């Protein structure tokens, strides 16, 4: 079920501009895309550091 999120008028105007420029179909699609991107990066960031450290041998 979809949830409602409140954002400022200013942010909404910026979002509409981005929808036009980047070719999104709606503000909702833009927001979902940005959240997905952040979520993925967060996950990669965590795993990435762990993977980096495993090269040391001490914790592999």
């Amino acid at each position, binding site marked *: 079920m979809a949830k409602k999120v409140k954002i400022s008028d200013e942010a909404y105007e910026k979002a509409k501009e981005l929808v036009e420029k980047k070719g999104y179909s709606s503000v909702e699609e833009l927001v979902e895309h940005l959240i997905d991107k952040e979520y993925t990066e967060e996950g990669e960031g965590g795993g990435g550091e*762990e*993977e980096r450290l*495993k*090269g040391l041998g001490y*914790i592999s």
Partner: protein
Amino acid sequence: MKRRDFLKLTAAAFAAPYFFSRNVFASTRAHQKVLVLGFDGMDPHIVYQMARTGELPNIRKFLETGYLEKMNTTPPPQSPVAWGSFITGKDPGGYGIYDFIHRDPETYMPKFSQSDSIPASHFVKLGSWRIPLKGGKIILNRGGRAFWEYLEAADIDSTVFKVPSNYPPEESEARTLAGMGTPDLLGTYGTYYLFTSDEKEAQKDLPGARVYYAYFNDYGEMESEIEGPANPLKEEEEPLTIPFKVYLDRGSKAARIDIQGNEILLKEGELSPWVELNFEVIPDVQSIKAIVRFLLLDAKEKFRLYMSPLCVDPKDPALPISTPKSYAKELAEKLGLFHTLGLPADTKALSNLTFSVGDFIVQFMSILDESNKIYHYELERFLSLKKGMLFFYYSSLDQGQHMFWALGDPKHPYYHPEESKKYGNMVLELYRRFDKIVGYTMNKVPRDIPIMIISDHGFNPFRRRVNVNTWLLQEGYLKLNTSDYDGATIMEVADWDSSVAYSIGLNGLYLNLEGREANGIVKPSQKRALMEEIKAKLLALRDSDTGDRPISAVFISEDIFSRDYLYRAPDLIIGFNRSYRMDNSSAIGGLTAKTVYDNMDWWSGDHCIDPANVMATFMSNFKIIRKPSMWDVPATILKLFGIETPPDMKGKPLV
């Protein structure tokens, strides 16, 4: 020496008297030259026993006119910590390295302690390219002033080869090459590649490895590519790749690898020479250079090809690995390409069972040979100088003892009788190899040049793992938002609003402190009592399977370290008893079902324990006036050159 004797000597208490020769010279004048050999992980008790029984004839001869002593090392006795003390003459509070792994108090995430990478911050877009305007950089986190800076000021030619805790190498006029802490070109501390025709193996997710399925056509040909570092100029940061082709001749158990104009012929079990790779960032304009070695593991029924991590090419380094920048190139041009990765022997490949013990030994010995070649070159140069200091570091004794310990230890849960028949004396053999290095040195170096041979810690068996995060959970100091925690990390499942302590690193325990941790709840006024309470409980912990105490010492950082970098320190440093060490996953915030359990890994010897259980080695060909500590060595080097000890050094000269 037989294996049972080896076990006896490593289990014995450190009560034996050590060598003190009466024929040693007292160093009372300023010298023109000083030589320091750094043998990471050399255990003084093993040296003593083997020298006493005549198994280390050169060291025995060295000690006829010299000293062997157990040396105090840092809490915790980890290489970047202890060598940091050697570099600065301070305790860890004076340079801010307390563990291989620190944590970010904002996120509770583990992070590498020795350096930080700051990515480029401003870009301009040109089509699909993303050009950095302001470059990123790598920062050395080790504070304090390196002793060779004082030598520079006194106009003394200095070479510091691969000392840990010096990546990126501190700006200096000295010739320095970075060692432990130097990453590969993926930004990791060693990620190897495995190309395998075994479908099951190809599906494995191995730590510190990239595994690819190798598909061969009917003509025995396989095409694949090496995925390198991300293209720094592309927004999507897609990996740079290099295609290569393999021709397999199963009949003669050999393969040919064609890559970027190189044709490499390998027999099964053979290690290739260094191969230079060129990852093109902008074709014909900019590229990233790497060096790798291949090892053909299997070439009959299965095809299995190992490729080493993408090492920085010393001839054209993509990362800062030496001062001056030309030093790495000088060595490569004079002696050929060499390992630049901080921890060069691929211990993960053996832990993951990608390597057999025999495969590991092939790679391992090539590294020791390479180190010897560079040492011989540097020693000749040192001897040709009128005035100079040479520090030369070897990693092999440390990495070898980590991986070979169980082969000579029938009490180890990972003891393999079949492998032990063939390789059971590897640890002792390694000490014999290092005895030869001492012999070579004695033959070359005139008697009146002061020589110190030091290690940063000793060694002991690693038979049982202790998950301190699981223990904190059981004791109620760590709270979770789930009951299903086996295999999870505290970053995923901790309830920080009600947790008072957590563990990150191989010896570190932190309080969830208000004003420091992002969701800290322990008030500064509660801190002391809580630390004392946890310390007492840790010391009382019993291994329910054996009845032994896994922890023999707990240090409260603010009581023992100087204040300069105390803010980075774990609140408590855990000193494990012999045979015990921090669980691998706990070190990066992981939780396991059991608190204490068997270590089933070729990584079977260790030193990240109570420093009193793994004291370091100190040997010299001159008289010392008191029991040595790691932080005394730089003050001693300076004194030998007639330079006063800087007032901020904790260490004092041993002469």
